């Protein structure tokens, strides 16, 4: 009976880790579903291609070579080491030891390359830490990066250091593994450090490293939901659903089309609203809170890695304006989390908390500073579109509140009255063709 105790404990830890994560995934899904519907159209082929190139292939990451290549190392390390995790899980449940070792030479090759990756990841993580905390690269220092976002980024790096070290120590203190003399590419150099210890101590170290490694991974898994590190999962769907139309193309609001058609067509009977159409008219034009955004914009917010590539390319931000596209995404996520917590606390229904995304998180000043230049969209390595949120919030300001800056109001009334953004007469449109 006692023999099964470790297996039982392992199973309990594993199941509770996974269940807790599943619970948060459930919340994540619910929160994203708070957004408006959005039909995903456009070429599937192009979407798969994007998934392959941009997400799996990290093609946009390497546009900035230093951080890009280091990121590829950590990313590959992460994917490869998952095979090792699979072995740990099987061993843990069935009480086996290195169940895949029957693969012989191949096993040695696999573990050997994991060990090399573990070292590379350690090096990459150190450089990442140095860039953030010593070199203090500008895009990590914007105001929105104070407090939790800054700590979050560092915690992840510490986590990686601990996990990689545990992995190497575990291998180094595994006498049977060292005896295989294959796959211990790196750990053979660590093993001598433990040479003075008794066999039972070494075994204890090995077991502790093994347990801490897997528990650490489960903790990490559950940390994701609270962290910008959620991107390691969400970047993939996010890239797949990312736009495949030209960046300059802004959606035409269907609800508006229906109304404009009625206004322009004198023969249309305004009372003859087709029966199925009633629910299509939105209660609100544009967005003032997260529920007014569509689900993809909310998925974008959860996927954002807070890397700041968007902000560092933004012309408004570069010239000292308040606008930062990264902050738009972070605010959206923070507000969405707040709304989600509100729903949890009120038995599944949202109770008005007197707050909203507009004003309490994102100010008008930020929104009006955008030139719609798409630099942020181009820069984002995982196809996030901060501009679409800015535009939806401008729509709310203008169509629901008539709250455009006064110069823009003048511009719009010029268009309305003279068909041009300036106060010129429509009849003078051909004047350019007259004398010089």
């Amino acid at each position, binding site marked *: 009976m006692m023999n099964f105790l470790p297996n039982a404990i392992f199973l309990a830890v594993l199941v509770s880790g996974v269940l807790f994560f599943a619970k948060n995934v459930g919340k994540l899904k619910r929160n994203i579903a708070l957004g408006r519907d959005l039909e995903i159209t456009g070429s599937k082929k192009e979407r798969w291609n994007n998934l392959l190139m941009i997400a799996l292939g990290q093609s946009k990451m390497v546009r900035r070579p230093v951080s890009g290549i280091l990121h590829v190392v950590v990313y590959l390390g992460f994917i490869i080491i998952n095979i090792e995790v699979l072995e740990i899980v099987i061993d843990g449940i069935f009480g086996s030891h290195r169940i895949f070792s029957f693969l012989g030479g191949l096993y040695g090759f696999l573990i050997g390359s994991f060990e090399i990756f573990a070292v590379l990841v350690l090096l990459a993580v150190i450089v990442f830490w140095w860039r953030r905390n010593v070199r203090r690269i500008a895009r990590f220092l914007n105001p929105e990066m104070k407090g939790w976002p800054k700590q979050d980024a560092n915690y992840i790096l510490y986590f990686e250091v601990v996990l990689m070290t545990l992995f190497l120590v575990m291998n180094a203190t595994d006498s049977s593994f060292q005896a295989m003399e294959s796959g211990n590419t790196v750990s053979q150099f660590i093993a001598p450090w433990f040479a003075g210890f008794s066999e039972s101590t070494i075994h204890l170290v090995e077991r502790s490293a093994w347990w801490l490694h897997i528990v650490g991974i489960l903790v990490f898994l559950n940390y994701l939901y609270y962290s910008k590190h959620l991107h390691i999962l969400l970047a993939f769907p996010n890239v797949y659903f990312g736009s495949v*139309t030209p960046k300059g193309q802004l959606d035409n609001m269907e609800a508006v089309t229906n109304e404009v058609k009625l206004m322009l067509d004198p023969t249309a009977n305004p009372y003859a609203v087709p029966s199925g159409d009633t629910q299509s008219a939105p209660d609100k034009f544009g967005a003032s809170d997260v529920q007014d955004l569509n689900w993809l914009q909310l998925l974008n917010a959860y996927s954002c890695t807070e890397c700041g590539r968007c902000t560092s390319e933004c012309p*408004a931000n570069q010239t000292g304006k308040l606008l930062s596209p990264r902050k738009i995404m972070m605010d959206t996520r923070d507000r969405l989390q707040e709304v989600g917590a509100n729903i949890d606390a009120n038995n599944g229904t949202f109770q008005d908390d007197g707050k909203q995304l507009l004003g309490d998180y994102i100010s008008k000043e930020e929104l009006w*500073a955008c*030139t719609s*230049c798409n630099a942020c969209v181009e820069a984002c390595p995982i196809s996030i579109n901060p501009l679409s949120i800015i535009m939806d919030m401008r729509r709310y300001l203008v169509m629901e509140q008539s709250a455009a*800056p006064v110069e823009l109001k003048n*511009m719009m009334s010029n268009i309305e009255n003279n068909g*041009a*953004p*300036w106060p010129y007469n429509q009849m003078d449109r051909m004047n350019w063709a007259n004398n010089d």
Partner: protein
Amino acid sequence: MADFQAQGKQPEVLFWVGCAGSFDDRAKKITKAFVKLLNRANLEFAVLGTEESCTGDPAKRSGNEFLFQMQAMTNIETMNSYGVKKVVTACPHCFNTIKNEYPSLGGSYDVMHHTQFLKSLLEDGRLKVESGQFKGKRITFHDPCYLGRANNVYEAPRLLLEKLEAELVEMKRSRKNGLCCGAGGAQMFKEAEKGNKEINIERTEEAIGTKANIIAAGCPFCNTMLTDGVKHKEQEAKVHVMDIAEMIAQAADL
């Protein structure tokens, strides 16, 4: 356009002049230069004249979807009534709007930016680009956001500049990474928000930094922003901001 219809003819292309091209004194010169080139190529083209109205781009980017769609549908109705198939414009904002945002409202046309159109005339042998006074001049090209990033057109304007045998020097932020001039998203029509610099000054400094004699533009709004920037830096004597159509027309002594 109405004249063509009266004669029962269909022009090869509709030249969408745009509001800037119609009313802005600087942009009117671009319009004229482009028309000279169209005439040189013996092209039958039409304009909508007083029937043209703002595409609605600045309204849409300000958030006024109603006004945008009103403008769009009015323009689409006009163009469809004339059976327009092909549209060319010297304004990337009009280009983007008509090309990308009109189709789902019922207006599908083959839309080209004037640099693309000039390139095609060149390739068909209908227009020759002479090097003229631009030979060997240092020129830098400012990518308009709505032509470049928004629609992935980077090469047509550069190809035309090469034909002028100019020495093309790129700014550090060019093509996909090009920096905005500061006019887009209806910023053209308002003061900028509080900051420590104007965007057009930032961009002009970068352009001047290439030691170019000419900053080539492909958008009337970028043109205004950069011209203002050059004035602000008091470099008017050394650096000129020109549209590519103007350069080609000048090189050909038109």
